[in-house]
């Protein structure tokens, strides 16, 4: 069975400051990793994903995440946050064994950007 741990339920940060949202997973097989974001009053949207290849993946709005297999982590970072980044962020994992299709989500981290 897979599980995802997001250690921080809430992260307040000042505008233009850097932020890191932590995600650790456990799985007995190789995995795909995702970060989804939920802006206020909106549905979940994919932010970025790791399937294979380069362990550093980036989003179009300046976020990046690095897959670290030895530490089973997929932390999300941004060097300078904006007010518009205020949202809830969910880390998710799926195993890419044959026939697998489920996403297992963490409990989410609420990022609040303070002006």
């Amino acid at each position, binding site marked *: 069975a897979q599980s995802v741990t997001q250690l921080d339920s809430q992260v307040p940060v000042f505008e233009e400051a850097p932020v890191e949202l932590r995600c650790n997973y456990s799985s007995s097989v190789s995995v*795909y990793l995702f970060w989804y974001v939920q802006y206020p009053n909106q549905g*979940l949207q994919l932010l970025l994903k790791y*399937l294979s290849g380069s362990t550093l993946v980036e989003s179009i709005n300046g976020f990046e995440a690095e897959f670290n297999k030895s530490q089973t982590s997929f932390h999300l970072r941004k060097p300078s946050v904006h007010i518009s980044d205020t949202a809830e962020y969910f880390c998710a994992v799926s195993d890419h064994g044959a026939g*697998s*299709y*489920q*996403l297992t989500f963490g409990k989410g981290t609420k990022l609040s950007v303070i002006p």
Partner: protein
Amino acid sequence: GAGVSQTPSNKVTEKGKYVELRCDPISGHTALYWYRQSLGQGPEFLIYFQGTGAADDSGLPNDRFFAVRPEGSVSTLKIQRTERGDSAVYLCASSPSGGTNTGELFFGEGSRLTVL
């Protein structure tokens, strides 16, 4: 719109009543998923359809929950004899392929169910 549509957006019912929640996926998406998100938790998998058939219903909590997708497009999640513990946001997602291991799920805004 072109996204996943869920109705109703909000549903308040009394304990013991029957509830139906509807999901209209993105046109052409063959895979459809239902998730449930309780307060303070991440989404939890309920059921997955590939076309008309339920490929995996292992996440359904008990036999009061049932879902159908008769024509391979719109899906309905049905909850019988609702209990207060069923209160949650029910999320629907679709994808153009049969597995999330190819990438993105497209989520609707959810149906918030409150059981009094």
